[in-house]
């Protein structure tokens, strides 16, 4: 059982997304162990990309700032291995295809796995184009989680279900990342459609930012991913609000 699968089988998983190097590399190194202590079951480490198509303004801005701070894929891999010495929870890289392609798929996967990364999420890589990367992730015993959206057809649900490993990332809405006032009213229908056709764990992300939203998502999913709202609190040292939010999310999931 991969570290990801095992983390998702214990309790409703709280998954945090942060952009590596935002607002600084030091914050990333400091905050990931705190997130684990406060109850996160997995952390997505975002490798910044110049053209983040699937992201709303919060994560875009965090990414640009990280790039200005000199963050590179290589640095992210180094930081991952430093973090791996401090935490036991699964760590996954979330980034776009071009930085990985440019690095070299084989090298990127090998070094990521060596640094203790458990899986990859590439939001602009559809399964149709993923065979090459899958060959490398599976050789390194890493998971590659594909995404599904409310617009995905039953055929695409089957395709992603066959090809995804670790879990399936469910995009809660038709849109980009970012906090929203309300979750989509069709969320239960969408998750139900996917659940019927797969045995993989399902994690819901995009637009989940409050404990109330997390509780509703957790009722139907195996994990809940929170990104933009955490990012907004990352530059508020010493993370009191971040701690409160994560504790609130944890509590919401435990009582869902």
């Amino acid at each position, binding site marked *: 059982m991969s570290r990801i699968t095992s983390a998702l089988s214990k309790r409703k998983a709280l998954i945090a997304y942060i952009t590596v190097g935002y607002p600084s590399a030091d914050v990333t190194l400091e905050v990931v162990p705190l997130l684990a202590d406060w109850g996160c079951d997995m952390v997505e480490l975002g490798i910044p*990309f*110049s*053209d*983040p*198509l*699937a992201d*709303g*303004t919060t994560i*875009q801005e965090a990414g*640009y700032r990280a*790039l200005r701070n000199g963050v*590179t*894929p*290589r640095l992210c891999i180094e930081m991952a291995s430093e973090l791996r010495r401090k935490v036991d929870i699964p760590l996954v890289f979330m980034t776009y*295809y*071009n*930085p*990985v*392609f*440019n*690095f070299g798929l084989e090298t990127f996967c090998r070094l990521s796995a060596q640094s203790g990364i458990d899986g990859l999420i590439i*939001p*602009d890589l*559809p399964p*149709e184009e993923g065979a090459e990367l899958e060959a490398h992730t599976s050789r390194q015993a890493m998971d590659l989680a*594909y*995404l*599904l*959206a*409310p*617009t*995905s*057809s039953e055929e*695409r649900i089957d395709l*992603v279900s066959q090809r995804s490993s670790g879990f399936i990332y469910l*995009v809660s809405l*038709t*849109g*980009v990342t970012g906090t929203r006032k309300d979750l989509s009213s069709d969320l239960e229908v969408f998750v139900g459609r996917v659940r019927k056709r797969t045995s993989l764990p399902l994690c819901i992300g995009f637009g989940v930012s409050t404990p109330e939203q997390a509780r509703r998502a957790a009722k139907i999913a195996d994990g809940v991913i929170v990104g933009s709202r955490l990012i907004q609190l990352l530059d508020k040292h010493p993370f009191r609000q971040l701690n409160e939010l994560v504790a609130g999310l944890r509590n919401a999931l435990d009582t869902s």
Partner: protein
Amino acid sequence: MPETVMIALDELEKAFAAACADAGFWSEFELLCHDYAGRPTPLYHARGLSARAHGVNLLLKREDLLHTGAHKINNALGQGLLAKRMGKERIVAETGAGQHGVAVATVCALLKAKCTIYMGEEDVQRQSSNVFRMKLLGAEVCPVSTGSRTLKDAVNESIRDWVTNVRHTHLLLGSVVGPHPYPKIVAEFQSVIGRETKDEMLARYRRLPDYIVACVGGGSNAIGIFRPFVEHESVRLIGVEAAGKGLDSGSHAASLVRGKAGVLHGTKSYLLQDGNGQIASTFSIAPGLDYPGVGPEHAYYKDIGRATYVAVTDDQALEGFKLLCEAEGIIPALESAHAVYYAVRMAEELSPESLVVINLSGRGDKDLGIVSKEIEARQ
């Protein structure tokens, strides 16, 4: 591409295949091209320009004479009709120079669709007359202030809009870039340029041209004129990219000449990027060429040696711009001026009986502000 729009790409591919097989669709497209846009465009023997090019026969394919001032209207009409067929009531598009944005806004006014155009903040300032045009035509123009604030960021933002509103919105990409089937669709609608050129050459000269020269940003006007000639190996195809302030200055947009393989906006092609796979900021005096990628079909022609790609600097493009004004009384778009400059320079090495077609992809009204500033700065 994000999963959210994969289904829309599939739907678009099917709708396009159905439209291709439907004679009614093409006759509607051709009628609009003829009556509304002003096709066919002339193939003009530019004697004045030829005289400045060692007597080599330079022929201008006058896409600049089309309604809205550039070849962009061909694709906007085609995709507009396609969107209507698919029942999409809203259209979203990116624009660099504003030519594609104006063409889309025009077609939306014609076909009664809601229209939102994303344009980099930098370009909104550089091409303000086109912004005004789009607004007059009823489009909402959204300035994009992220990244380099030019064309690639406008593409990002229009894709984000599409991801959000995909159920009732068609993304009307303006060049032969983006995910499949866009490059194929845009090339199909633009290849009317090459078909007309071929017919006219055969009717008038009873032979094909020796060279075809076209500017390349994303590459739609070039694909449009190249396509019907690809099978004729004797016709040499030359794409002219923007060398901006010079190929070694770091401020250019020559993806084919200086880029390496990468993936952007759902396309694998040559890309300008840094050593970490971050997309580079590009620069060109011609906003329509200011894009870090290029259509995958051009990448293919480069790799198999079917087409040759070169680059022309801002200064050289300005020279081409002024030359065409003086020699022919035609004010070209700065984009097209890249092709004009290269064709004239290339003529030095050709025999006088050579026939060279330049795709004059657009007119220069939109560029007067940029050009007057540049001329002032150089005095």
